[in-house]
């Protein structure tokens, strides 16, 4: 596979305020890349730099080998973009907006456009100002997809969509992926990223702290095991074991909750020395991993840099 997006040491600040600093990553053609981060982390800044709405202070961003700033016109022909906070002429109807952008782009298949409108069940006769937040999002989603772009850049695409339309969006992303097209989406809805993306980048305070396959990110998981014993067990039994990050005794020593990282082999063997009533293991969600990267203490970030 070849990289469709290449970002190298990209830096952008707003006067004295931080934007992003030295962000580097690549997105391969055909991938669905999830760009994760809390509010103000730098997701939208990165996306707006890719779309040449902002000019980088330093570093480089390329799409299909073309410079995002210098060759933005060529790039925009192959990109479908959905901004985080769509603002459009409030006096135009949804239909007029879609027709206007179809005209500006040129070459939009009207039959496909009508299909998209039907899929999202959008009433195109209403003025943009009369739409609910979700319907506004539908309009801009349709305009991003309507020309079957080779690359979709979507900033928080499902924000405000109801579950049914989120599902429709998931299908559209899957279709795009199946057709070999690339999707770059930012989100803080981790279940969505887990579900739709093949690769994930996590940005925090303007710096990329982790990048990898969704499965790979999950592999560094810190999961939990809760073991209930017939008799009280001393905490020291588990504290020094490989893979144990934290030990919490429950029910006067009858149960133990272990925060785990890595293999559970040592824990299982140690637990086998006592009469076990039950054992439960919790899979971490991406949510858990995500939250871990945004804990107040800086330790996870350092760790993440090491892993990445």
């Amino acid at each position, binding site marked *: 596979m070849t990289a469709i997006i290449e970002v190298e040491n990209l830096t952008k600040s707003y006067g004295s305020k931080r934007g992003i600093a030295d962000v580097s990553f690549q997105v391969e053609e055909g991938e669905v890349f999830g760009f994760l981060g809390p509010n103000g982390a730098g997701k939208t800044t990165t996306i707006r730099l890719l779309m040449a709405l902002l000019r980088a202070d330093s570093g480089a961003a390329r799409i299909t080998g073309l410079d995002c700033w210098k060759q933005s016109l060529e790039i925009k022909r192959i990109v479908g973009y959905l901004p985080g906070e769509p603002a459009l*002429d409030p006096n135009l109807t949804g239909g007029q907006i879609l027709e206007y952008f179809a005209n500006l*782009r040129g070459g939009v298949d009207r039959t496909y456009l009508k299909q998209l409108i039907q899929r999202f069940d959008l009433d195109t006769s209403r*003025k943009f100002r009369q739409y609910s937040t979700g319907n506004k999002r539908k309009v801009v989603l349709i305009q991003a997809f309507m020309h079957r772009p080779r690359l979709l850049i979507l900033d928080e695409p499902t924000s405000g969509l109801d579950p049914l339309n989120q599902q429709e969006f998931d299908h559209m992303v899957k279709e795009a992926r199946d057709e070999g097209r690339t999707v770059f989406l930012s989100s803080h809805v981790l279940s969505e990223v887990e579900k739709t993306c093949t690769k994930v980048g996590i940005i925090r305070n303007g710096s990329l702290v982790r990048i990898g396959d969704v499965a790979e990110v999950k592999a560094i998981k810190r999961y939990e095991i809760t073991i209930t014993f017939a008799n009280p067990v001393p905490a020291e039994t588990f504290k020094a074991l490989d893979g144990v990050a934290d030990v919490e005794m429950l029910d006067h020593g009858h149960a133990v909750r272990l925060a785990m990282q890595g293999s559970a082999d040592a824990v299982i063997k140690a637990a086998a020395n006592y009469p076990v009533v039950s054992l439960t293991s919790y899979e971490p969600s991406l949510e858990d991993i995500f939250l871990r990267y945004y804990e107040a203490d800086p330790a996870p970030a350092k760790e993440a840099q090491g892993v990445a």
Partner: protein
Amino acid sequence: MLRSIYLKTLRDYRVAILGWGIGMGLVVISPMASVAALVTTPQAREQLVGLAASFAWNADPIAVDTIGGYATFKIGFFVFLIAIWPLLAGSRMLRGEEERGSMDVLLSLPRPRLNVAIEKLAAMWTALLVMGVLIGLLAFAGGAKFGGNFGLGGGLLYGLNLALICAVFGSLALLISQFTQERGPAAGATAGLLLFFIVLDMVHRVVPNTEWISRLSPIYYYNLSKPLIPTYGTNGGAMIVQLALAALLGGAAIWLFVRRDVGGTVPFPRWLRLPERQASRALPVGDWSLGSVYARSMGMIAMPTFWWTLVIAAFAAFLVYAVQLLETKMSALLSGSPAFTTLIKNLGGGDASVNAGLLSAMFFFLPVLLMAFAVTQVNGWSGDEQDGRLELVLAAPQSRIAVLLGRFAALATATIAIAVVTLLACFASAAASGVSLDAGNLAAAILGMIPLGLLVAAIGYLASGWLATAADTGLLSFLLAAWFFISFIGPELKLPDATLRLSAFYYYGTPLLHGLQPASVLGVLAVAAVALVLGTMRFARKDIGV
């Protein structure tokens, strides 16, 4: 200052109170500075009185050879400028909060809707009162400095009279905003009505026996008080009429606000409503304005252009119609006066016909209106960028240069359209009223406004590369006011020619009498082109929406 809605709103107005109050106060003082130089000899005094009589359509020429009288006379038309802030404040007071969505939060507080609206209106009136006091104090200071014969009471009453007429138009804007979905159309409609009422007030000064028509205008009651002229004084009844009108309009606005949906509008009676157009769900929608950035820009500018055309063309046609009546009135007033002949020569700068001489002076206001239109459109461009409405357009395969130039081209087209329709209206008015004018020069005078409109627009586009919308609009408004004063008062202040050349109006000249000066027109167009090129270069390189 955050303890109540009243105080919070007043806090929001603090910069405007100081800026507008002091700025307008200085506007009032500026003509006072030139009186001494104008009345050095009895002949000069007679000439000044004659000159003022030629502008009687604009304001009553009473005691114009005194400091207070001259300032009152000179500020006449400027009530238009002074009333801009209240009409903007009134239109956004409730509607602006609704557009931003902050009204929902405000009304979620355990506080009656009525109180919210009353506190906000009271804050605006308080702000106007403070502005009035500032203007009054500055007028008094100006009078004291340049030898005026009015006291502190006169100055403060002058400020109060201004505050009252501003309260009328602020309240009118608030009322109109109950019927509009956005604040812009409410502000535009109020500005149109303001100009209409100014013209309505002018009617009785031009057309005999028409005072009853002018009484329909709030401006008429404002002009009944002239507190800076002790011999004329203040008309308490007229002030009460203005106060009652402001209360009535504000009260009606609040009455409607508490009864309507937040974010909705008050429906017009069925017989006043336009037939509802059912938008089609089918694509393509077949709208002419969706084909390109230029076409879309034309679609956006079409309605404001229509209203501005109506106002400017009607005003110009009125001036053409009024000139003959004014000439008759002046001839009766000044028959046999040697100053009259000199006056016309001064106005026209030569031996042109009386019609053209008078009209040339009156037409001085038309480019200002066209330039004000350009300011509003620059405001729209800058606001679109600031509010993120350009983001998706720029994400389409359209170069930034094409987007900016498409928008500018639409503005240029609208400017030309306004001028052409105004010219046709003037021809029609001249034909109907039998005023004889040189057709070529009339065309030069009207079409000569176009470069000035383009100049303002280009400078605004350039400045929007760095400035936020409010600052850009403020800068252009200041520039417009400064140019106007340099050209309007500068010659009386005997400002050096180099200073007079700083004003764009200098290059407009007196086309009604002397035709267009090609070098001047090309010079203005060249400066506009340079500003547009620089503005385009800046826009092509700047961060969008930051």
